[in-house]
């Protein structure tokens, strides 16, 4: 293709499409490359989205028929041992009124496709089934376009936005972002499980259109640093479980067997009972946190979303950080085009915008969390086991006095964990999230 564009975007996910929408509104000629058959066909997340960041790009996303699965009215957290576990949830009627669509579930193959369609209607050219295999550079090394896998597949552009996700052989090849180390990513597998909507509403205690999310920690990851989730969609549940990739390797646990054991947990099985699995997927989650974020811009290029390792594991925020960073990248590009300066200096506004935003502030706040969880494996085995022992003991009526039960619990815990270790753990836990 001989045509030249102002901006080339690699990847039609939340980061790339958000940027494309903003650029189209500024009448900037933009092309987006997507390696899948259609946008969303290679993408996977929980998947929850946050209305706030989407509304920054498309204020009228509801009127535009955004494929919302269920509006989330309750968020639960489970801490599980092998046989049981604790459940804590927060539900609020405000999430059906003033804060409706604060969080909602989507199916990414549908949402991303719809989202890309909105960008297309604004004038963006979206090219699916096209892999970007390299970047074009000029003599001084500045990026001046992309090389696709198609014949005559070189496209020149003033600026290139890399929004190609966490698994990016392009980043590794071009050196814009180092290949992640196994401990810097989590591998998650996910099943979409079909259930009639009435059954979902009954099991989760919600009315139609409303839904629940459950985040799950504990022995379900068999001692590995990991997490699971069950989210309600309209006619299906999203069930995902993942763990640090280095742990998968050293524990020699197969992801597809882990998900099967998870599905049989006594608190999980009744929720998915009689459900039919429709699809099975796998994807990475960026787990490196703040310290894994690469240099986010340079001569002729910027990086956004998962590709930039912008992911908040604790708050399950990824797609919204992709949207927010995509928007900031686009705003920076608009400035650069007006000034006709695509150098690192001309794109420095991106770094400034990010640093002032919640995106980087949140990631900095939790910068120690990833390593804390990775090194404190007791969270995923010993602690839930002991916690369940305590719960079971206190709830068993067997003629033993409560005071004696309390003593038994404390002695059992002390036998395994010294008070010093417990306090050190709590201190480190606090430090990792403060």
């Amino acid at each position: 293709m001989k045509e030249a564009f102002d901006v080339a975007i690699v990847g039609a996910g939340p980061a790339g499409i958000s940027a494309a929408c903003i650029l189209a509104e500024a009448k900037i000629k933009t092309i987006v490359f997507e390696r899948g058959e259609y946008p969303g066909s290679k993408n996977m997340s929980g998947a929850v989205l946050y209305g706030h960041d989407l509304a920054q790009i498309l204020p009228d996303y509801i009127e535009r028929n955004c494929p919302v699965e269920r509006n989330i009215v309750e968020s639960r957290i489970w801490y599980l041992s092998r046989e049981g576990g604790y459940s804590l949830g927060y539900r609020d009627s405000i999430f059906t009124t003033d804060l409706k669509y604060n969080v909602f579930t989507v199916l990414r193959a549908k949402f991303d496709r719809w989202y890309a369609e909105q960008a297309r209607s604004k004038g963006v050219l979206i090219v699916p089934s096209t892999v970007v295999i390299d970047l074009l550079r000029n003599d001084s090394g500045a990026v001046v376009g992309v090389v696709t896998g198609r014949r005559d597949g070189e496209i020149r552009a003033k600026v290139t936005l890399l929004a190609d996700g966490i698994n990016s052989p392009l980043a590794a090849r071009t050196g814009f972002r180092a290949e992640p180390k196994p401990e810097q990513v989590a591998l998650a597998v996910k099943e979409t499980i079909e259930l009639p909507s009435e059954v979902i509403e009954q099991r989760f205690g919600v009315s139609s259109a409303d839904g629940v999310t459950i985040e799950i920690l504990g022995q379900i990851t068999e001692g590995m640093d990991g997490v699971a989730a069950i989210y309600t969609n309209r006619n299906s549940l999203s069930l995902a479980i993942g763990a640090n990739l280095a742990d998968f390797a050293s524990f020699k646990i197969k992801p597809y067997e882990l998900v099967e054991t998870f599905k049989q947990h006594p608190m999980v099985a009744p929720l998915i009972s009689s459900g039919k699995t429709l699809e099975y997927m796998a994807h990475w989650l960026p787990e490196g946190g703040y310290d894994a974020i690469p240099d986010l811009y340079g001569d002729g290029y910027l990086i956004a979303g998962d590709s930039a390792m912008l992911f908040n594991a604790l708050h399950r925020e990824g797609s919204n950080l992709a949207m927010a960073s995509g928007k900031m990248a686009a705003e920076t590009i608009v400035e650069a085009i007006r000034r006709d300066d695509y150098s690192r200096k001309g794109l420095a506004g991106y770094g400034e915008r990010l640093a002032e935003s919640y995106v980087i502030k949140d990631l900095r706040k939790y910068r120690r969390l990833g390593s804390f969880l990775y090194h404190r494996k007791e969270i995923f085995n010993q602690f839930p086991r002991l916690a369940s022992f305590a719960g079971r003991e206190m709830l068993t009526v067997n003629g033993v006095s409560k005071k004696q039960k309390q003593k038994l619990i404390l002695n059992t815990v002390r036998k395994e964990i010294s008070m010093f270790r417990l306090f050190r753990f709590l201190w480190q836990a606090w430090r990792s999230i403060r």
Partner: protein
Amino acid sequence: MSMKIEDKLFLDRFKVNQESHLRIIDGEKCMKDCHEQPCLYLCPANVYRLEGDRISVNYEGCLECGSCRIGCPHLNIEWCFPVGGYGVSHKFG
């Protein structure tokens, strides 16, 4: 009843290319130098299987996560995306 990986992959839609996008660079290394062989465990699609004295690469069911590429202790796997439009296509995502 536990679901087998073959049954899981059977649910997915794949457009399979004639040519593999995954390749073990030096097969001998896997058998001689790699004691852990983590590819046999960490691949969520069971792409890598021990068959006699070699590891076979069943790329047709690859879910394109990239885990084998960085999880191979010898970085002995050449990994690129399938040609545009090929590979797995999520219906739900």
